[in-house]
């Protein structure tokens, strides 16, 4: 089997418009969650989110492009551009044919659906713009990334709710490891912070009105975010031959289904995915120094996740660090695992563990080292990234420091 390394990263999210700014915010424990700005806000009960403020698509694209790019596509294109630039790759000939895109998203072009439902239902118009379908489709972002960068190999979108980007990156990893592709652009993008998107989440009664406080006893729910992160996954020999800078190595992946409940998480399902990723990477439990948690800040997730980690790691659970950066950038739903992978890379490369901010009171049911409120310097060689979705779908990645 081939080795898979990461040679480029890009992002846009509430913490920053690029990787450097985002990592700086994570190091400083800065909160990107703020008052939402959107139409009909007064009709929402939830008015905070990890929103990308003061974002002007016209600064980057012309009218014809914007007519085709939903907000989630724009985010994906911005993140992909940065990642490819860092990798130094340009895709022509055989490399183009052996490179593709696997993108995670849950809502796809939800903002486009939302706006156009308004047009036909609320405003009673009988005509919509001709490109609504290619703009809202879930694969639009993956396709535009492939078109923009001439990626002609396998390209598709993965939708597994909150685990979408981990599932996507897992597919990219498998495709390179097995020899199907040499380079894959992968990650996730989400732009669900629109009126309809938030209204639907409000209905579930799991959203916090004030802050995302994962693992804290007084946590009272999740906070939505938006944005994207994309990575260049590359065959190690290919990267080595061209002298590329390697950010980290992807060494394992596993996915499981709880096959139990459409919303309530299962400790067993999560534990099987964590154990599976470690087995795939041929790791012992004491190899793992840091876990980027799913850590949504809901009652159900956080205690289930901590119990799963305790089950898998036994005594070592007390020695490892586990933090949730959702406290800073919010829950990007289908894009969340991708932004969180940035924290994993920072842990491996820079020896900085991103904190769980907003942490106020210990919860005996989440009695792990959650790196409360302040980033920590620590040398770690192996990290895991957890994602556990509605529908009981779990996906865990394992990464190793590239030395």
């Amino acid at each position: 089997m081939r080795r898979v390394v990461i040679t480029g990263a890009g992002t846009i999210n509430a913490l920053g418009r690029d990787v450097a700014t985002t990592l700086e915010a994570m190091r400083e424990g800065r909160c990107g969650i703020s008052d939402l700005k959107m139409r009909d806000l007064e009709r929402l009960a939830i008015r905070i989110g990890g929103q990308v403020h003061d974002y002007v698509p016209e600064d980057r694209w012309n009218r014809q492009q914007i007519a085709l790019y939903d907000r989630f596509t724009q985010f994906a294109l911005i993140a992909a551009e940065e990642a490819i630039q860092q990798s130094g790759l340009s895709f022509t000939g055989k490399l183009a044919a052996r490179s593709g895109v696997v993108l995670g998203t849950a809502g796809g072009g939800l903002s486009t659906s939302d706006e156009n439902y308004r047009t036909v239902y609320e405003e009673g118009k009988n005509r919509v713009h001709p490109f609504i379908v290619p703009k809202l489709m879930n694969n639009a972002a993956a396709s535009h990334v492939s078109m923009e960068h001439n990626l002609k190999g396998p390209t598709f979108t993965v939708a597994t709710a909150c685990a979408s980007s981990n599932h996507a990156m897992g597919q990219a990893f498998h495709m390179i490891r097995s020899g199907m592709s040499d380079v894959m652009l992968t990650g996730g993008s989400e732009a669900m912070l629109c009126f309809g998107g938030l209204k639907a989440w409000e209905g579930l009664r799991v959203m916090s009105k004030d802050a995302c406080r994962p693992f804290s006893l007084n946590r009272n729910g999740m906070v939505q975010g938006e944005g994207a992160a994309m990575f260049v996954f590359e065959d190690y020999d290919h990267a080595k031959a061209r002298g590329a800078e390697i950010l980290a190595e992807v060494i394992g992946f596993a996915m499981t289904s709880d096959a139990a409940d459409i919303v309530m998480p299962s400790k067993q399902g999560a534990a099987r995915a964590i154990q599976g990723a470690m087995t795939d990477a041929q790791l012992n439990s004491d190899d793992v120094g840091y876990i980027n948690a799913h850590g949504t800040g809901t009652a159900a997730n956080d205690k289930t996740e901590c119990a799963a980690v305790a089950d898998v790691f036994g005594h070592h659970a007390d020695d490892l660090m586990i933090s949730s950066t959702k406290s800073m950038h919010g829950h990007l739903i289908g894009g969340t695992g991708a932004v969180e992978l940035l924290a994993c890379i920072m842990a491996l490369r820079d020896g900085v563990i991103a904190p769980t901010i907003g942490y106020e009171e210990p919860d005996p049911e989440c009695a792990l080292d959650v790196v409360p409120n302040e980033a920590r310097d620590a040398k770690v060689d192996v990290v895991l990234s957890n994602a556990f979705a509605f529908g009981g779908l779990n996906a865990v990645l394992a990464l190793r420091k590239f030395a």
Partner: protein
Amino acid sequence: MTVRDKVIAIIAEQAVLEPSDVTGDSSLEDLGIDSMGLVESIFAIEEAFDISVPFNANDPSESDFDISSVDAIVAAVEKLKAEQA
């Protein structure tokens, strides 16, 4: 239909029981209503009475809406109706 009758009808529908089997002292748990059934019941109550129920599924016991028994829910709905009238 009184407030009590309406609340009982909503809960009975969720629990797949006859309204006559839903007694005032029973808890939703006794009636076999799980967390999703609870969220649906709250939604149905809001729609039926045109009220907004303060309820966070992360910690139902900490919400300002007492759901410990059918009687408690009826009383809470009556209070909200009076407050939000």
